[in-house]
């Protein structure tokens, strides 16, 4: 047997260092190190932007333009639906309580953990805005009028987004007002718990129902979640289910907007 360097003392020192830092980090005593996030976020941002420019990742300009136009049109449809409902409410002498003082914060995507180009969809995003910019856990992340995800973790300078496809669960409604719960199952999105009596159709747009807490943080109503692509209706089941497809191509995102407090 070869005579080799004894690693045990080095291992013990490094392992002790790891445990010490981990304990301090978990107890929140390393917050002063948040300045490191800025330098690492610069590296992440640079590499993410480079990835977006790779020929097999970046898309044809024409297709990109058409997709943008499509998103704009869908946003307009959602706005139109909202206006129609507002008009109906006004004519009935009701006032809508839609949050009007919404603030949007522009954030750049600097990382997408879990994203293997060509193999899997991103399930999380890392944004370059954190608690210093008033970002809070539970805030909605949007692009135009489309819901992208929900802020899951926030540090001083960065925030971690759960994309709606990934383990999201919130109340939503169809254009015709059928209520249900949107659930993200990793790669796909479903509208579940829709009563059998409700008439839901293919290609119908699903909007958020609104879930804002007393601090004004959460998902505002009438954001586009996606459109129905497949309906699963079985008379013996309590509820009907539908598969949804978001209009947002999560692999091509580089900038998103965070809904700040809507108070």
């Amino acid at each position, binding site marked *: *047997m070869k005579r*080799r*360097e004894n*690693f045990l003392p*080095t*291992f013990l020192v*490094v*392992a002790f*260092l*790891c*445990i*010490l*830092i*981990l304990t*301090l*980090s*978990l107890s929140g005593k*390393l917050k002063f*190190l948040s300045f*490191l*996030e800025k330098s*690492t976020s610069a*590296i*992440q941002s*640079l*590499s*993410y932007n480079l*990835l977006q420019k790779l020929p097999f990742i970046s898309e044809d300009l024409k297709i990109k333009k058409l997709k943008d136009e499509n998103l704009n049109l869908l946003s307009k449809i959602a706005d139109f639906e909202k206006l129609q409902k507002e008009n109906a409410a006004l004519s009935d002498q009701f006032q809508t309580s839609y949050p009007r003082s919404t603030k949007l914060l522009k954030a750049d995507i*600097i*990382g*997408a*953990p*879990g*994203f*293997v*180009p060509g*193999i*899997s969809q991103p*399930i999380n995003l*890392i944004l370059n805005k954190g608690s210093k910019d008033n970002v809070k856990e539970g805030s909605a992340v949007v692009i135009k009028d489309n819901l992208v995800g929900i802020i899951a*973790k926030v*540090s001083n300078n*960065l*925030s*971690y987004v759960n994309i709606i496809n990934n383990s999201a669960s919130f109340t939503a409604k169809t254009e015709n007002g059928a209520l249900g719960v949107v659930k993200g199952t*990793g790669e796909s999105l479903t509208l579940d718990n829709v009563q059998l009596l409700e008439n839901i159709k293919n290609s119908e747009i699903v909007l958020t129902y609104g879930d804002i807490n007393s601090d004004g943080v959460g998902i505002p109503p009438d954001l586009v979640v996606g459109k129905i692509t497949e309906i699963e209706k079985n008379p013996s089941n309590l509820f009907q289910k539908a598969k949804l497809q978001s209009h947002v191509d999560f692999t091509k995102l580089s900038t998103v907007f965070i809904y700040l407090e809507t108070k």
Partner: protein
Amino acid sequence: MFPIFILFFLLIIISSLTTIPLSIAVLSVITVLFEKSWVFFAAFLLGLFLDLFGLRPLAQTSLFFVLFVFIIWLYERKFETQTLTFVFFSSFLGSLIYLIVFRYNNILFQAFVSALFAVLVFHLIQNSKIKTQKLK
């Protein structure tokens, strides 16, 4: 040493883009080929960077990497490890456990890619080491 430094730098950049645990692959190769104690410090620093990128508690990944290097070292004391088979399987198993512990998707595919990357890096570094020894 310089190519190793470049390799670590590239690894940090790639790690911010994908979850394929290439760090495990490189650590496995470096531990097997160099048999030096600085590998523990490299594992520690690499883990810290990945924790910063992933918004995880600091040193969580470092601890995993350090334990991974330690296990390879324990195996190295009794058996021959400088083989392609060992590098492939150690990287595959290490990556698989890493992906399970940190709850990633597509674990088998990612672990397989990581193991293939380890074999490639092992082959390249070993060849360059042999060439350098011949020149001396």
